[in-house]
């Protein structure tokens, strides 16, 4: 394990890939890995790309990788696709559009299924991003599945969130959905070769006006990802946003908020594990009989279990 982590930190792709798998499958070594990896992270610019299915996230990611590469940066990519809720299987097809980078030693692309995370971004996505960061990728690009909770969750992981809209997909309604407007740092109107791109851009700008003065006014950019048009601008705005975060009070606030969430997440997980153990011990047919007969209440049972946990941990 020590050796594997050391090799990954030197940038060896096979070792990085293995670490991500161990963390993703919640192996018993996952926590050891993350404890070792974490101190080396915090250097990469983590970028989230979100937007409705088919908006062009993967196509754009492919071009964004190329632009960062031309600036001399190394790039890690995490591309998330939905897992089947019935079989747990998945077809992970995002990287299909990024295969020109497959043999580039400076680019590491990893596909992930949502697995059990109910449409949200799973914890393992964040851990994979931390691993890529620690293992020396300058930029870590995360492509979300673009539905439901994942769109909002990405802000918990990424420094810069790019929201991709396309003309004619009812996105004007989409963006008004609670929270979406607020999380985007850059708006990208892709498929600008189609009618209506200007209108979408204007509408977004109007909504941004309504939100009033904020320390970072998200730019609204038009792209034709397929033809690599407008992508250079996207990359330079992403870099400008990273600079803004580095220098501003807003950036500090966001960094602290994210660190706070990381601690809370671990606390919640640890406590949940303790609670599960204690509750398993307490469970018995007699207890359920008492509950059913209303001789005791779930509140009293919970209180007693909490009491046991507290006395046990204090000893």
């Amino acid at each position, binding site marked *: 394990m020590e050796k594997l982590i050391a090799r990954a930190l030197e940038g060896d*792709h096979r070792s990085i*890939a293995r670490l991500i798998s161990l963390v993703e499958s*919640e192996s018993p070594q996952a926590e050891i890995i993350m404890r070792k990896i974490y101190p080396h992270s915090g250097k990469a610019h983590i970028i989230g790309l979100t937007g409705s299915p088919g908006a062009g996230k993967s196509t754009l990611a492919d071009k964004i990788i190329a632009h960062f590469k031309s600036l001399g940066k190394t790039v890690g990519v995490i591309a998330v696709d939905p897992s089947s809720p019935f*079989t747990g299987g*998945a077809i*992970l097809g995002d990287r299909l559009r990024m*295969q020109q980078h497959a043999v580039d030693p400076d680019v590491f*692309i990893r596909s992930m*299924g949502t697995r059990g995370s109910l449409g949200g971004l799973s914890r393992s996505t964040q851990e994979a991003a931390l691993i890529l960061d620690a293992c020396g990728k300058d930029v870590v690009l995360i492509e979300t599945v673009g539905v439901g909770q994942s769109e909002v969750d990405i802000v918990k992981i990424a420094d810069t969130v790019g929201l991709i809209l396309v003309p004619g997909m009812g996105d004007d309604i989409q963006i008004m959905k609670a929270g979406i407007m607020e999380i985007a740092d850059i708006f990208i109107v892709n498929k600008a070769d189609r009618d209506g791109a200007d209108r979408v851009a204007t509408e977004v700008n109007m909504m941004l006006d309504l939100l009033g003065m904020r320390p970072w006014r998200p730019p609204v950019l038009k792209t034709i990802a397929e033809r690599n048009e407008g992508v250079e601008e996207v990359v330079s705005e992403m870099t400008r946003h990273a600079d803004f975060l580095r220098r501003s009070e807003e950036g500090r606030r966001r960094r602290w908020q994210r660190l706070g969430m990381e601690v809370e997440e671990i606390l919640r997980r640890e406590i949940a594990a303790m609670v599960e153990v204690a509750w398993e011990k307490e469970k018995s047919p007699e207890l359920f009989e008492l509950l059913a007969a209303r001789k005791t209440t779930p509140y009293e049972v919970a209180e007693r279990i909490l009491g046991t946990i507290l006395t046990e941990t204090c000893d």
Partner: protein
Amino acid sequence: MSERKVRVIVAKPGLDGHDRGAKVVARALRDAGMEVIYTGLRQTPEQIVQTAIQEDADAIGISILSGAHEYYFGRIIELLKERKASDILVFGGGVIPEDDVPKLKAMGAGAIFGPGTPTSVCIDWLNSAVREKWARETA
């Protein structure tokens, strides 16, 4: 706790144009609970092997219709050796003459499925071969 999942690359090397067969296999593997990384058409052996490494795949499935199977299997298996990744299984399907199968297996191919093989045969083979691979890893 999420358990370890079988991860398979489905690739279509070579220049011939369609990937219907590969897509059918990909869907069948997904329905069997596996994670399939689909890389699309016209992949070079280098791309396929790097993809398998980055994705920490357990197996590479290649679909070949062009008749160049000997070259592609040989090259992929050789590159896996070079990268010290020979533990990754290689299997294939498509149009491969029966007579060539022993040669491909001698090169290191784990299994070759001829035209018309039910996908369940492929799934069963993968499930057991990958579990043996996992057992070797922890040994």
